[in-house]
């Protein structure tokens, strides 16, 4: 009777210790402690089927999967091996083992826990009474059910955690840039919206700094995109360091980064002081080289700044304003910064409009026409003419080449436009040659931009146009600027040699406005120099211009290069040029630019007079 009560109380106490926690480990730890104390055990061990990550599971993923150790109490108890056949059959008790070591008895009992685990208990000294083992059997079945519930619960928790992590990852990816882990455009725009709202309601201001790395493309082109990416990461880290948590650093795309600073107070001057201080920090931050792989690279940003709120401007508009200012900063040179103002937008809008119209015009090239301004010798005889493009735009009143040529050059449209000019000039020369020409008339000069001249197909394409028109290449002179010749000097020399061999003349246009070193002239097959009209102006009264022109003329003579002065508008200027030794002229004094028919008529008249 006494033992019966004892057994009942043991069974009850152990039974109460099952399922004390939904989590497997705490539940087993509590059960183990009661088991140790109540049955005088020295250790308790649990083995379960487990995933590779050590998470208990209810079913083996492979038939050969074995039980793995999960928990021992005490934790430093010597490891125990569960019988291999533990999960075979239906028996709850899978092992009763006795061994004697140093005259001390050690007993080990293993019980099956469902189809997924086992519990083993060890005892030093007396063996457990058979009734105790019997009472443990139903307890172990209950424990198995509790373990199963805990494992299912934990699997569910893990699935929830994995899902939450996946959601967090997706959310992170949605709002961050993959490469730098910085906030991306989406997050930037959300934040900018919030800053705008806060600035408007709180009467404060903010600043958006649009950074574009100078010459980043060169890094990608020369060192590869992998180094380029490392550089972008380094830039992101440097910017984050500079901002030190005070504001947002975002990557917009490519080499474009945004710094967003909110909560600025005071008048515009004070805000600018704050932003200027930040700009100084950025300059200082980028004065050191950045490490990108094995390379230490110096990189500078061009920065456009938009202060907000600016009227009713939306976040998108503020970003565009900063972009516009950044574009201006790029034009101002490396490592520059420009604050946005509305004039910048107006200028940029004009350029964008012109670009669109130019694209349309190139599809309908009849909008373009070549005018010709004749060139004359000392005797006033016509020795040639310069082809000058005119654009009869349906949208605006005869836009000046000074306005649209730079747009064409910046947007890459210059290649197409230049090709049209050459073809049209060749066709016009063919018409000129079809009639009578004064014997002094030598050639038509065509302006060629650097982009055009440096294109690998330029020479081949020019020769094709000459051949198609069936004209003599000697009737063409190409006017190149100094900078075109200086840049890519070796390739330029090779091309010029090919042109000269065919008979095409090379003239240096706007001479004197570019590089002071003129040594290149002696090494290139240049036949004539055009003295820029800026030096011709007021030559009779301007000592400075006079000195420059004297030098150019002396150089031409020394190198036996022909000279022609542009923009000659008065007889006094012409007389001065003559006195200095320049005997060829172009300008309003002789003729305004005129359509081809006008030039043909003029030449015919001169022949008739002769």
């Amino acid at each position: 009777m006494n033992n019966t009560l004892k057994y009942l109380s043991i069974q009850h106490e152990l039974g109460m210790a099952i399922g004390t926690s939904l989590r497997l480990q705490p539940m087993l730890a509590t059960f183990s402690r009661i088991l140790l104390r109540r049955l005088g055990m020295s250790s308790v061990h649990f083995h379960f089927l487990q995933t590779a990550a050590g998470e208990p599971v209810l079913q083996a993923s492979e038939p050969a999967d074995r039980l793995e150790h999960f928990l021992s109490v005490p934790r430093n108890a010597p490891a125990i091996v569960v019988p291999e056949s533990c999960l075979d059959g239906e028996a709850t008790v899978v092992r009763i083992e006795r061994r004697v070591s140093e005259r001390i008895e050690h007993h080990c009992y293993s019980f099956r826990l469902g189809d997924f685990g086992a519990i083993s208990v060890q005892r030093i000294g007396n063996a457990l009474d058979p009734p105790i083992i019997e009472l443990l059997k139903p307890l172990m079945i209950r424990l198995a059910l509790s373990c199963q519930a805990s494992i299912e619960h934990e699997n569910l928790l893990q699935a929830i955690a994995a899902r939450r992590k996946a959601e967090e990852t997706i959310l992170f990816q949605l709002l961050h840039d993959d490469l730098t882990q910085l906030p991306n455009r989406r997050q930037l725009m959300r934040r900018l919206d919030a800053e705008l709202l806060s600035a408007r309601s709180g009467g404060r201001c903010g600043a958006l700094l649009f950074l574009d790395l100078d010459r980043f493309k060169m890094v990608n082109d020369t060192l590869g995109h992998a180094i380029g990416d490392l550089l972008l990461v380094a830039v992101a880290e440097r910017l984050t360091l500079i901002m030190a948590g005070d504001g947002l650093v975002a990557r917009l795309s490519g080499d474009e980064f945004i710094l967003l600073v909110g909560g600025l107070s005071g008048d515009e001057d004070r805000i600018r002081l704050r932003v200027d201080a930040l700009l100084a920090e950025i300059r200082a931050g980028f004065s050191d080289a950045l490490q990108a792989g094995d390379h230490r690279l110096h990189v500078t940003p061009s920065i456009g700044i938009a202060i907000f709120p600016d009227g009713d401007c939306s976040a998108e508009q503020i970003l565009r304003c900063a972009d516009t200012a950044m574009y201006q900063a790029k034009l101002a040179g490396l490592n520059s910064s420009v604050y946005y103002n509305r004039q910048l937008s107006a200028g940029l809008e004009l350029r964008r409009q012109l670009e669109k119209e130019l694209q349309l015009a190139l599809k309908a090239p009849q909008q373009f026409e070549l005018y010709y301004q004749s060139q004359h010798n000392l005797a006033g005889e016509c020795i040639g003419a310069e082809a000058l493009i005119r654009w009869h735009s349906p949208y605006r009143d005869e836009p000046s080449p000074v306005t649209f040529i730079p747009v064409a050059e910046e947007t890459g449209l210059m290649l197409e436009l230049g090709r049209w000019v050459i073809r049209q000039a060749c066709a016009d020369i063919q018409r000129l040659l079809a009639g009578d020409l004064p014997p002094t008339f030598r050639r038509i000069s065509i302006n060629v931009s650097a982009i055009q001249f440096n294109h690998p197909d330029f020479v081949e394409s020019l020769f094709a146009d000459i051949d198609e028109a069936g004209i003599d290449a000697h009737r063409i002179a190409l006017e190149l600027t100094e900078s075109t010749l200086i840049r890519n000097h070796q390739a330029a020399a090779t091309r010029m040699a090919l042109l000269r061999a065919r008979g095409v003349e090379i003239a240096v246009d706007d001479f004197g406005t570019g590089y002071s070193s003129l040594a290149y002239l002696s090494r290139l097959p240049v036949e004539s120099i055009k003295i820029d009209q800026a030096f011709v102006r007021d030559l009779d009264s301007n000592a400075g211009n006079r000195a420059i022109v004297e030098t150019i003329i002396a150089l031409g003579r020394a190198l036996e290069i022909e000279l022609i002065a542009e923009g000659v508008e008065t007889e006094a200027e012409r007389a001065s040029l003559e006195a200095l030794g320049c005997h060829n002229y172009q300008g309003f004094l002789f003729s305004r630019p005129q359509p081809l028919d006008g030039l043909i008529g003029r030449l015919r008249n001169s022949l008739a007079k002769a």
Partner: protein
Amino acid sequence: MMVKDQHVVLVERRSIEDLDAAIDRLRKDGSRSFMLLACADDGWDPAVLSTWLATVDAPVFGGIFPSIIHAATCRRHGTLVIGFSETVEIAVVNRLSDRAGMEPQLLASAELLERAQSLIVLFDGLCPNLEAFVESLYAIVGVRAAVVGGGAGYLDLVQRPCLLSNIGVLEDSAVLVALSNVIDRGMAHGWQRLSGPFLVTRSQGNMLDELNYQPAFDVYRTAVEAHSGQRFSDTDFFSIAKTFPLGIEGVDGDFLVRDPIKQVGDALICVGEVPQNATVYLLKGEVGALIASAGDAARAARAQCQHRGNVANASMALVFDCISRLFFLGAAFDTELAAIESVLAECGDVTGALTLGEIASSKAGVIELMNKSTVVALIGTPPRP
């Protein structure tokens, strides 16, 4: 006035200078660490003691106990300074009554505890959470290290600073001393079954609410009054209860003694946990049986020592004997100590403390928190490095 006996110095006065002198003397004899067993009745000022402990440039540990044992005699005054020839390592667990805070501290010291050959564990005997502490300690230490120790504190049962360490006098704490030498131990209580069994049908920690679905005090009173002839209505609770402890029956039929020290309403407050659903018996004490059990504890320790091929006379005997045995045995308590001394005659010193609860690793290896028991430990000479 100091009495020196091998590695033990009894400091009779409450004097910091005498403590310093004792430590100096033991240090000259080769001691590198020091255990201090002080008496509550000496009224040490914890602030003064803390300041001094912080200045001792060697590991120092110990406790303030109701009484100490020196030369097989119980003393209510004086401090034992016991020298250890090894430099022991000490871990302190604070906020012992906060289970959630206690376990991480033990885990933080796990490397030290697992490395030790044996551990002396002194604890605040009035801490309410001792069972959990002992379980957590076993979960880390396991069977590898033998554990012995006892509870420090004051007989007025008011918890206050009572543990000594290099960081001062501590309350609600435990001091765990890792030794590199082996401790052989024996423990016994001598209390015998009187009536029962009773099923613990409601309890919480050390508060026993119901036995056999009846108010615990009613069941206890009925059983005790029937055997003792005394009445709780006209006698102080503890003066009767000290003679009739409860015993939690183990699976092998042995008893883990639980001392009811207080009655609160219908509940009994015990020293140590009484788990719900356990079977308990009412125990009785007989002077002869208790004294004999103390001798049994000493014999078990000596047998273990000899079994391992060690020489008992190279060991120091340390006794943690429950203060309630003194209350029960009265003048016969010295006979109990003499019984221990006679078994361990070759050991030289029988020193120790009268404690509020005792702990030791059982034969099965599990660390047990005991009441009204005697723990005898033989501390061997550490192995040469």
